[in-house]
């Protein structure tokens, strides 16, 4: 199985290559990708350098152009595809059907991967896009159990890739407007979720309060570390329940399922975290590489756990009881 690693900067790109990635994915510095955060992502020149660095070491470069094209401004997205191809990216990762059609028509021989943002969670959806646009690989949304991943992988006419570590969307990816409901900015359109530009904090005695737009997302007692107000991981009230209604502030860790994924025929394992720093990239990639090489052990997994957001992890939809 290939190990697919994130990079938000040229430096962390090199770190990921050095730490043992088989492929590194990154995006351009604008709203064409789903991690459109300030100070993150690569310029055209940097992508050229990245492709060279990776290529010389036998590592592939994947470029995520995985937001949905803004009507009337499609040229920004098609230009991103043109540039990624011209600069030598090994594959482009796409969610938008119109952009997929463009890439398939313009660059029929260039590898197209279906982004997790396409929310392609079943065999008919995936095979339709394989037949229509020659998709070579699908990144599966985080809504499937290990058994379902195995079933999809058996039936689809392309490779499958699954997230095994890092941030976790509770909602099906590419089909969530919670962020734009609160802030006007969304993953699908602007490539941001619960953007920092709309985050604020307040205090009430010893309590720390986090807000997104006009809404209170969490209140942290004095003895509790304050987390980032990602909407689906906030504390809310419904009926008699008060607390983390959608999901605790946890991140995904399904490394213990790697043997099952291998047996299922999954082609690639993906690490989330283009927004994370160099230390995270080097350590996570290194440790998972070791685990993949079967030399992994308890202490390495413990080191990984410490790098997780909120330091608590879940296997998410991979295990049926999560639902």
């Amino acid at each position: 199985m290939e190990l697919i690693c994130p990079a938000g900067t040229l430096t962390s790109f090199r770190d990921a290559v050095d730490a043992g990635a088989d492929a590194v994915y990154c995006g351009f510095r604008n709203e064409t990708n789903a991690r459109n955060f300030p100070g993150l992502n690569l310029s055209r020149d940097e992508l050229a350098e990245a492709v060279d660095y990776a290529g010389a070491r036998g590592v592939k470069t994947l470029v995520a152009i995985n937001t949905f094209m803004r009507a009337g401004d499609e040229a920004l997205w098609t230009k991103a595809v043109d540039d990624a191809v011209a600069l030598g990216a090994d594959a482009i990762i796409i969610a938008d059907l119109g952009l997929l059609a463009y890439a398939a028509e313009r660059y029929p021989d260039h590898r197209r991967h279906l982004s997790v943002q396409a929310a392609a969670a079943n065999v008919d959806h995936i095979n339709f896009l394989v037949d229509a646009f020659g998709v070579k690989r699908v990144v599966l949304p985080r809504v499937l159990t290990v058994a379902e991943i195995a079933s999809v992988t058996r039936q689809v006419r392309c490779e499958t890739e699954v997230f095994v570590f890092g941030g976790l969307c509770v909602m099906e990816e590419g089909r969530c407007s919670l962020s734009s409901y609160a802030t006007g900015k969304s993953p699908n359109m602007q490539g941001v979720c619960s953007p920092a530009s709309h985050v604020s904090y307040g205090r009430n005695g010893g309590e720390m309060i986090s807000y997104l737009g006009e809404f209170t997302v969490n209140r942290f007692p004095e003895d509790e570390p304050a987390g980032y107000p990602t909407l689906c991981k906030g504390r809310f009230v419904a009926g008699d329940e008060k607390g983390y209604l959608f999901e605790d502030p946890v991140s995904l860790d399904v490394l213990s399922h790697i043997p099952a994924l291998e047996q299922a025929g999954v082609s690639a394992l993906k690490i989330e975290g283009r927004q994370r720093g160099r230390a995270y990239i080097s350590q996570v990639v290194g440790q998972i590489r070791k685990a993949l090489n079967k030399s992994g052990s308890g202490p390495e997994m413990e080191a990984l756990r410490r790098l997780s957001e909120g330091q608590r992890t879940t296997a998410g939809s991979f295990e049926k009881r999560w639902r």
Partner: protein
Amino acid sequence: MALEVSTTPSVRLTIGPLLYLWEPDKWRDFYFRIADEADVDGVTLGEVVCSKRQHFHQPLLGEVIERLTAGGKKVRLASLALVTLERELRSTRLLGEQDEFEVEVNEIAAHAAMRGKPHAVGPLVNVYNGPTARVLAAGGATSICLPPELPLASLRAIVRDAPGIEYEVFAFGRVPLAISARCAHARVKGATKDNCRFVCGEDPDGLPVETLDDQPFLALNGVQTMSHSCQALIGEVPELIEAGITSLRLSPQRCDMVAVAQIFRAVAGGEMDTRAGLQRLGTAYPDAKYSNGFLYGVPGHQLTLAR
């Protein structure tokens, strides 16, 4: 300048699929009343949110379709929004195998199942631009209800860029914001998705979610998360028509939907001004806080009063 009498192009009104789990007799009676009394052109039926609910209304579907058809309403059948299980795939494929009713697809698997036959596309399919609309049209889509998240500028650009398709917008109702493999609704009530005892049926208008500072925020509807506010694109009806939108979707809430349709009809026909329309909606659905922010490209929960 001579005063011209503008002829307003007629706009279709459709009742979208009922997104909540209603008791079977209430469900049937709702549609009977729509069939007999509502001034709407079409009605989309069927379970969109959760396949576990499908058996509740399946036995009543025949009589409801018959009544709606007799009432002059064009009936469409909706497909599921999230398809992961084998039986969900089977029911999606079955929609493609029947030719009696037009299908509204809410997932690409259903679009694939149509094999090029004419069909409608629901608001949960990501159509953000003209090229995507053209891809779907090439596969048989003849009408598209655009995603509620889109601003007016995008609606205009899509209609211009991909002509020959009927365009609809989500004009009334709590907005479906997200769908998950996990059922927050069941969890809140101490259950899990696989052993849910259909607790979502206890909240026929959604279970309100508030912030820790008591701000109304969202509503739970099984695996779907909806807006607390009720989207009402009533003040913008003239602009929507001018942009080339030909159909307005009214999504059922626990309120007087016959009155809601009447108000939209009056505003679309120019017999009621938009402000009066919004005010009248307040009477038809007294619990609602209205919003239209998505259309203006601002936070979706906000309400901007049309000029």
